[in-house]
């Protein structure tokens, strides 16, 4: 009964949202009083909800701090959370909703696919969006209203290839990646980085994001006896691939992007299996610097759980937005987008300088997994 009622309500909402012309909403006038409305759109339910919940906690921490310190020119920031369920269709509906309800900026989402779907609507409505997505496709949009709080896969994998091929001299490299938005981006970026170094992978296996049994793919890889196995998949799947690879007797070093620096990867693969995995990430651990240590302590005090990269980059993104809002005096639109592009900030993920494509961070670091935790690789 309530299901039927809510679906009617949802249908009515979609119909209404579709009617509202984008960009013609009543944006708050400059110099207005009252709270500044900022939307946080992230998955709070469904398969990707853990990412979305971390992101929201990071954003909320930054906004709460700013509000406690007096807000933006005396105005408080009103942070509203919307659940996109990790679904691009729901994302576009929410984009229209926030455009018609006078939100001046949006933080999120953690999903490249959802952000890609929302970007054109937010661009028309002149609502700046700082996303946590890292697909190179986001930068290719060249939207003046879209900003990335982390590097794209291109940067992650260029750093990784440089370390593996140039520094360590590995030539026999095998790839296994999934064909989802993240895995495909990783696959293409790493392959391009290898190609520029004249290295051809000895195996290139593609799996589906839902796949659990990799015996067939890994048995083929094993025949090539690779020195390095590059894994382009999310946290859990990366862990499962590593675990099954070791069970099959593959001795190669595992290498990959940020997902392999998480405890989810290490516990899924098993601490012993994950040992010495090579990780390319702008945020290696909660102990990497004094600023990060202080942030991790603050986060733990607020939420009772350990900080991680997703939290840190969401916090960085929100901090940049607050800084830009202070410059515009709470004004949104083109002025806010320009202000964000101008922000130079020494953040938790590195030094932010936004380029023409809206990418804020341009380098990652190499770390090695030791006893389930990432330690920075000593410069060789």
């Amino acid at each position: 009964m309530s299901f039927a009622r809510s679906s009617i309500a949802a249908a009515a909402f979609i119909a209404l949202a579709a009617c509202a012309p984008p960009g013609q909403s009543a944006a708050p006038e400059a110099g207005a009083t009252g709270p500044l409305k900022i939307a946080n759109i992230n998955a709070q339910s469904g398969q990707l909800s853990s990412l979305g919940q971390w992101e929201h906690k990071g954003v909320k921490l930054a906004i709460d701090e700013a509000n406690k310190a007096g807000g933006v020119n005396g105005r408080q920031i009103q942070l509203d959370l919307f659940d996109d369920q990790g679904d691009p269709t729901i994302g576009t509906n929410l984009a229209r909703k926030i455009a018609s309800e006078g939100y001046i900026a949006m933080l999120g989402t953690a999903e490249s696919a959802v952000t890609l779907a929302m970007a054109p609507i937010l661009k028309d409505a002149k609502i700046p969006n700082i996303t946590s997505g890292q697909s190179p496709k986001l930068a290719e949009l060249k939207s003046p209203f879209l900003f990335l709080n982390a590097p794209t896969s291109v940067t992650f994998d260029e750093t990784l290839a440089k370390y593996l091929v140039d520094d360590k001299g590995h030539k026999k490299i095998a790839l296994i990646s999934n064909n989802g938005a993240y895995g495909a981006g990783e696959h293409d970026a790493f392959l391009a980085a290898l190609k520029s170094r004249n290295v051809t992978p000895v195996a290139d296996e593609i799996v589906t994001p839902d796949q659990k049994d990799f015996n067939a793919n890994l048995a083929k890889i094993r025949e090539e006896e690779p020195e390095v196995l590059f894994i382009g998949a999310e946290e859990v799947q990366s862990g499962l691939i590593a675990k099954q690879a070791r069970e099959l007797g593959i001795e190669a070093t595992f290498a990959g992007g940020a997902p392999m620096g998480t405890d989810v990867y290490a516990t899924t693969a098993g601490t012993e299996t994950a040992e010495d995995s090579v990780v390319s990430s702008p945020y290696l651990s909660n102990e990497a610097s004094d600023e990060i240590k202080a942030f991790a302590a603050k986060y733990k005090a607020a939420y009772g759980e350990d900080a991680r990269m997703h939290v840190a980059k969401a916090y960085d993104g929100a901090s940049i937005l607050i800084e830009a809002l202070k410059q515009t005096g709470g004004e949104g639109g083109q002025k806010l987008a320009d202000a964000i592009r101008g922000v130079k900030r020494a953040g938790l993920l590195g030094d932010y300088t936004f380029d023409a494509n809206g990418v804020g961070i341009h380098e990652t670091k190499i770390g090695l997994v030791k006893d389930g935790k990432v330690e920075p690789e000593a410069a060789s």
Partner: protein
Amino acid sequence: MQVFLQTLIGGVTFGAVYALVAMGFSIVYRTMGLVNFAHGSVVMIGAYAASTFYLATQLPFAVAIIVAITVTGLIGLIIERFLRPLENKDFTLMLIGTIGFGAVLEAGAVLIWGATGHAVPSPVATGPIDLAGIRIPTYNLVVIAVAAAATGLLALFLQRTKRGAAMQAVAMDHQAATAVGIHVGRSNAMAFAIGAGLAALAGSLIGPMLYVNPTMGGTLGIKGFAAAMLGGFGSMPGAIVGGLAFGLLDAFAAGNFQEYSELVTFLVFAVIVMIRPTGIFGEATVNRA
């Protein structure tokens, strides 16, 4: 050859788990004519119950599995009790009821255990067995053995005990069964409890091979359901053959069709079901509506 045999190992292990899930679907269907759409979520609850108990108490994994079977068996009884007033009255509502229970279980798991999930260390410490280059993880052998033993016990129960025979009778003709004094409601409850127990067994076994989280039931449920259809919905031997066939189909598609593997698996499945709508061991369809 090595690749072929290694693929076979993976396929059979996952196939054994799909077979357990499929048997759970089938035992409810053959007794009540109802597809229990909450079944995948019950698998997930079973995985959580077993892994949480195992991690918290450090008791042998077998004990954790029994705890999980008990917990989910009770959940099965509760679901059946809720649906009983609808039996023989509104079949569609019963179906929707099971979908609702699935959502409730998933939301409940998020509330109790959080959205993130946890990894379960393998209960078997010994390394993989190496047979001329084919590596067989010892835990996979445990999974296959336990699944086979459970299948044997269930067959004994259905064929050799009075209660089992009564359930068979209800499955064949529930009106005639009522006429000879068999309590249909009790039979249904038993089917739901056994189905949930099988789900818990599948969930507990797969936990250490995967990652336990609130949405893990989705894929397992769909694949188990497809396996049951492939074998012949409602048939117990069908569920076993269907489960193994689906596991192997999945494994070989992954090796040969890469990113198209899922597409190929379900295309082959669709073609088989089109040619033989009743599945491999097809029985006359039960319909109580």
